[in-house]
């Protein structure tokens, strides 16, 4: 569990042209459409979106844990290898050891009839079968303590722990195997706000200490501002915008991001005294709008937006937007906006 040395190539995971389509009674649902982005080593990337944006599907797709009815295409290059091409055995090795997930509901994520120590030890035994039982236990103990749970709680059962503690156990399960990437899928949504704040501190701590990358999937925009280094905004299965968190919050480019940020409540009295009300509702994914999926709600909509879907383009170093305002096209009437560096 030493701190990871940062390699020259500091990109941990490259996702290219990821597509996830579910088969449902109502027809094919395109939950994730042509997504490409990177996750760097040791960074905390926030994936923020509303319901139906596809963010949870993204998380599960990265873990290769989608149901059989889902068709997944694209590339996922994790530390140089394409995970999409793994067979079942390789996937089992991959999951838990290199990539780990924390779910929303801490009540049901842990096996109620297994002690906490057994959970952690079993994780070690499954992935590193040569490890002796005592050293596994020792590792478990040290790690759990590092996460702020008293040592004497190890023989407890999950129902004896609070929600916050259970989430920490989940983090522990990810860390004990030195995972490179931990995906937190709405991990703090069901927790109280003080517990959530402490968990935010914990996340930062494990990133600093273990060099682990974090993908924080959430609908809570304030949380992303509090915790993440970079943020990706998802809308209707696509990435609308991605970039360093300060830049995206100070200067949102995509009209959806603009509206979204203005509609988030701010607890500070002197800031944002009124909330912006965005028109319309997120679209149905069985029959998404033509062209750009946001166009029915966009205050800056142009003619081309109805017909053709823009690409996710890099408009400034590290900043990508999926919008015709910033992309050239021969049929555009209005000029393209240049983004200040």
């Amino acid at each position, binding site marked *: 569990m030493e701190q990871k040395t940062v390699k020259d190539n500091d990109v941990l995971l490259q996702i290219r042209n990821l597509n996830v389509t579910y088969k449902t009674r109502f027809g094919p649902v395109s939950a994730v459409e042509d997504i490409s982005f990177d996750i760097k080593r040791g960074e905390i990337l926030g994936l923020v979106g509303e319901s139906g944006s596809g963010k949870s599907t993204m998380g599960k797709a990265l873990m290769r844990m989608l149901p059989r009815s889902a068709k997944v295409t694209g590339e996922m290059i994790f530390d140089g290898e394409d995970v999409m091409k793994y067979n079942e055995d390789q996937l089992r090795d991959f999951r838990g050891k290199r990539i780990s997930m924390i779910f929303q509901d801490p009540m049901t994520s842990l096996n109620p009839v297994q002690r906490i120590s057994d959970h952690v030890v079993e994780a070690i035994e499954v992935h590193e079968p040569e490890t002796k039982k005592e050293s596994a236990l020792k590792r478990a103990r040290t790690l759990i303590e590092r996460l702020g749970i008293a040592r004497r709680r190890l023989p407890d059962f999950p129902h004896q722990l*609070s929600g916050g*503690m259970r989430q920490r156990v989940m983090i522990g399960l990810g860390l004990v195997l030195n995972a490179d990437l931990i995906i937190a899928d709405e991990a703090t949504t069901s927790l*109280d706000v*003080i517990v959530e704040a402490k968990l935010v501190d914990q996340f930062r701590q494990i990133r600093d200490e273990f060099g682990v990358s974090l993908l924080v999937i959430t609908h809570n925009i304030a949380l992303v501002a*509090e915790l993440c280094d970079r943020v990706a905004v998802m809308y209707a299965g696509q990435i609308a915008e991605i970039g360093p968190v300060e830049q995206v919050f100070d200067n949102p480019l995509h009209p959806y991001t603009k509206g979204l940020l203005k509609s988030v*409540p*701010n607890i500070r*009295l002197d800031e944002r005294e009124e909330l912006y*009300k965005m028109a319309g509702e997120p679209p149905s994914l069985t029959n998404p709008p033509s062209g750009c999926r946001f166009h029915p709600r966009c205050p800056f909509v142009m003619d081309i937006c109805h017909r053709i879907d823009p690409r996710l383009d890099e408009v400034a170093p590290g900043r990508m937007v999926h919008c015709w305002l910033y992309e050239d096209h021969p049929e555009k009437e209005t000029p393209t906006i240049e983004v200040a560096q």
Partner: protein
Amino acid sequence: MSNCNEHSGMETLVDVQNLKKWFPIQKGILSALSGRKIDYVRAVDGVSFHIRRGEVFGLAGESGSGKSTIGRCVLGLEKPTEGTICFDEINLAKISAEELRRLRRRMQVIYQDPLASLNPRMRIGEAIMQGLKIHYPDRAAEHRDLVIDMIQRVGLTPPQFYYEKFPHQISGGQRQRVVIARALITRPELILADEPIAMADVSVRALLLDLMIQLKKEFNLTYLFITHDLATAKYICDRIGILYLGKMVEVGSLESVYQKPLHPYTQALLAAVPVPDPHKRRKKEMPRGEIPNPINPPSGCRFHPRCPFATELCKQEEPELRELEPGHFAACHYAEQFL
């Protein structure tokens, strides 16, 4: 139990005095027979406050604070273990079941989960009409028009389209509007809003909040707004009460509580809420430990095991909720230092 006329004034719509609600824990036949003492979950353990007509009174707290239970007691949906609830100078404990039922016309509920709170087999128009059928049965001819009007007023147009729909056929935001319409159809005076926007999408919440504020003006409503989201509370509440483990630790106008929190728990709570601005990340340290078990709350001040300012006094003596500034109350022995 005290008289409801004590703390009156034309202004006070709801007066809660020393409300306690304890839930007994069933231990099982053997221990009950052996006469062992029953444990109680002390969900609400002595809370007093009042709500003025026309204001939005917020009740904020984390899980186990008792906020939902207080709301239900105020509306007579639960019977208090102790304490008095006065609605418009009517003592809820002293009226008959039938009178309480008729009193419901004047106080309604907006729930957190719109899908769960609507009968899945009842069309929307009919669901909204129930309130009229119960409380105004003699005006049956007008019912449909009144419902259509209300559907329109909560922003669902064309109203006839929504009238015939079932709850699962419309979106979450629209459903919550239906719940609001159902609550308002009897022209109540008090609305208990229990986390009304928590389940709505982020972009829709602002719309719903706006609707609630607008309707408050239109219909002269008073809200008891229960929430765990202090950021949202800022946009709608006039006054706010902070609850911790069944007790009220701070009460006051929204500005005074948010600007100058006088209780360490309030301070921690306000600091814990993330701000949607990456330049303004939290620097304050969070209190140690977690919310204790409401079956066996800590002695003295309930927050003392976690409070950075706790002393021996805090462990032994429970602080009173006292007025430190006009209209601003806090239950802390050392609240003065924060003034």
